[in-house]
């Protein structure tokens, strides 16, 4: 099939950036979206032009490196997939496709479609861990039975891949879903109880310091999350935060 691509090009963080049009023929429906961009880039390199820079690595939907706002939606039109697992069969011959970086004040553009998501790392530095040293002398893994329901919920929260789609989907560019996933994982497990209050307070404080917006419960984050992280986690984060402040 043939496509018209409108792609955000921005040389570096200082550059103003603009949308540029590209025509691409012979797109196979079996290609992934990123393989389609590979084909475009191969053609650009052939012409001596600079290829479109985009983030990607595992290409199997788990590393969280790929991003892209495709036709206005983070990770494109399909649900519960990352851009690397989006396939061209979701598009039609003759379509025009708009490809932009994730937009948020806390995610400055590095180049073209690549943004700097290190704010997410800094939030994790503020408390996304359980303080336990590596010794080989921790207690036996089966010493504390954990209710399966809680273990499953903690796991579901822990499957967040840190891609930033929740932020890109949110009209306030809030990072609440991301933060709540980590806070929930540990709040649901006995191992996480000791630092429970500090963790909620410190991670929220760092989130605010990074310039992410407030949550107004529109649920766009959950709708666009490629891993289906539930909004319930945000409710839990609010409870944890309130509990810590009281």
């Amino acid at each position, binding site marked *: 099939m043939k496509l018209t691509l409108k792609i955000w090009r921005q*040389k*570096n963080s200082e550059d103003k950036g603009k949308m540029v049009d590209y025509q691409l023929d012979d797109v*196979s429906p*079996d290609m*992934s979206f*990123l*393989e389609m961009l*590979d*084909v475009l880039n*191969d053609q650009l390199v052939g012409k*001596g032009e600079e*290829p479109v*820079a985009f*983030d*990607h*690595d*595992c*290409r*199997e*939907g*788990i*590393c969280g490196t790929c991003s892209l706002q495709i036709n206005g939606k983070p990770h494109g039109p399909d649900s*519960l997939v990352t851009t690397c*697992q989006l*396939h061209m*069969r979701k598009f039609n011959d003759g379509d025009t496709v708009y490809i932009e970086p994730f937009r948020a004040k806390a995610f400055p553009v*590095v*180049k073209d479609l690549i943004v*700097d*998501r290190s704010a*997410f*790392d800094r939030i*994790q*530095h503020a408390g996304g*861990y*359980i*303080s*336990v*040293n*590596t*010794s*080989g002398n*921790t207690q036996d*893994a*089966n010493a504390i*039975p*954990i*209710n*399966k329901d809680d*273990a499953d919920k*903690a*796991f579901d929260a*822990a*499957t967040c*891949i*840190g891609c930033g789609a929740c932020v890109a989907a949110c009209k306030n560019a809030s990072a609440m879903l991301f933060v709540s996933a980590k806070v929930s*994982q540990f709040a649901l*497990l006995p*191992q*996480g109880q000791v630092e429970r209050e500090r963790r909620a307070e410190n991670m929220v404080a760092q989130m605010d310091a990074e310039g992410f917006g407030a949550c107004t419960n529109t649920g766009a984050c959950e709708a666009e999350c490629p891993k289906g992280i539930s909004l319930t986690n945000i409710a839990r984060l609010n409870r944890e935060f309130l509990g810590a402040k009281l």
Partner: protein
Amino acid sequence: MQIGSNFPAQIPEGPLADKWTNYKNKINLVNPANKRNIDVIVVGTGLAGGSAAATLAELGYNVKAFCYQDSPRRAHSIAAQGGINAAKNYQGDGDSTYRLFYDTVKGGDYRSREANVYRLAEVSANIIDQCVAQGVPFARDYGGLLDNRSFGGVLVSRTFYAKGQTGQQLLLGAYSAMNRQISRGKIKMYNRHEMLELVIVDGKARGIIARNLVTGEIERHSAHAVVIGSGGYGNVFFLSTNAMGSNVSASWKIYKKGAWFANPCFTQIHPTCIPVSGDHQSKLTLMSESLRNDGRIWVPKKMEDAEAIRAGKLKPTELKEEDRDYYLERRYPAFGNLVPRDVASRAAKERCDAGFGVNQTGEAVYLDFASAIERYGKEQAHIKGMDENDPAVYLKLGKDVIANKYGNLFQMYEKIVDQNPYETPMMIYPAVHYTMGGTWVDYNLMSTIPGCFVIGEANFSDHGANRLGASALMQGLADGYFVLPYTIGDYLSDDIRTGKIPTDSAEFDEAEKAVKDQLEKFINNKGSKSVDYFHKRLGKVMWDKVGMARNEQGLKEAIEEIKAIREEFYKDVKVPGGMNEYNEELAKAGRVADFLELGELFAKDALQREESCGGHFREEYQTEEGEAMRRPEFQYAAAWEYKGADQEPEMHKEDLVYKDIEVKERSYK
């Protein structure tokens, strides 16, 4: 030359089961005050590098960690699916440290180092304890205790898992341990940085040259020791299950500085991957080996059925039970669908080469869940008191069980292939997945360059010629959490009076110049073909002639062809953009240049190894039944020493001695 004279493997004396304990009791330690004055560089932040960085920082060393990704959380360990082995014997099914050791040595076809494997099995249980303490949410049963599953090549259930995302959960555990140390200032993290050279001062590894991938700046970093945990080299095949950025460059740079590279031809071709769909393909996707617990592998028995399926005239679900060839169950009744990966991969290739492949290219077999869905469904119906003979009831219940176990994998398959694996069998084919070979290290995990340690997939020692499922995660974390922190301390105890290593020395000048020269060469080359063009050509030679089956003639041709591609690459590669900016093509050019050298050594290693063992299959050496024919005279690790650009590398042999395990024919029948 034999290993043992110049570079002994440093295996401690004494009975196998006591070696590690005795070793730990006798090594030198560094006191906490002195650790503060010692810097360690860790390259790579996967399970091995991440766990090592966190643990060394906890101990008090100043760690500088480097990864090419935008965050350490994205290292490719994250994509590991099925699980992690540990000899906990929670199931009471006869597991023990010795049995895990035995299975691993046998699974590796007696080409791994006995003492290292025993140590791995010994510390495996600690890994699970440590990860649970960190909050890793492993699967549990209703009693609240940890659940286990079984993996290929073993007869016990010792694999701990978190659905099909075990690697993700373990890596996020190591990442969280790193985050704690980053917040304390004990780890300085360098994201989007790539190591491009090792710096050796007075014979010791004392630093690296790295490139900031965002600004293009070339940076000097010094330390008292350098740890490489940069993963495997499967991307030499272009198409593999590795991440797009996975590369051999850190390992290759140290090889060219004197670290021997062992057994490059030991590469794992994983049997259950989604088949190639077309020329545009950029990577291959694994379907976890855990699926073989419940999926049955088959192809049609009759050629006409296979042809009809390929032509789209017949659906697999229409084929009667007696017309299907469950070839693994037929050939290996004892292990069935759970034979080790090398055996399963070769068996799939054998059926497809014989003309029974089931997709358009003829390179796919079925992985079928219908009987598991029925079995689980009936069990659930019985538990719930429902009609266990009503298909509408048991099919629904059975699909729920399968979804609970493998939901994310089934979803991934459907998104990629556009077929529903709950209704029709999956199509799978082998793909390059893991590399058992890597930098030669001694018992201390130190390479032949003093002060340069290599951990995880990047080293060679634990998996021999074939890695068992769920053992990669175990090894990465064992090295990083529990082995290296001891062994590196013994080495660093000599460095307490050294002081900061300066970066303005002639050695750093020279290393930086070499890096800049190569980058400039690429930018100024003005060729006509993209980096990927050469990478794909290399990959095709590797897959066709150095892939699942190898022979002397093919390997000799491959060596010449790779040389030719390499020459053409340097003449005709085109790298747009500049040096001092984000330039992925430039980064790729450097990685492919290294793959083009590694590929040749890989083929040479496969050529000298005139036997079949594990993932290395030489067509000349097979039994009448088509099984691998191992030869006792090749019971060694081949460690290659770089001798210069135009020189042949020298091969050193480390004889592999097994005192506590009988070397037997490896049978899974």
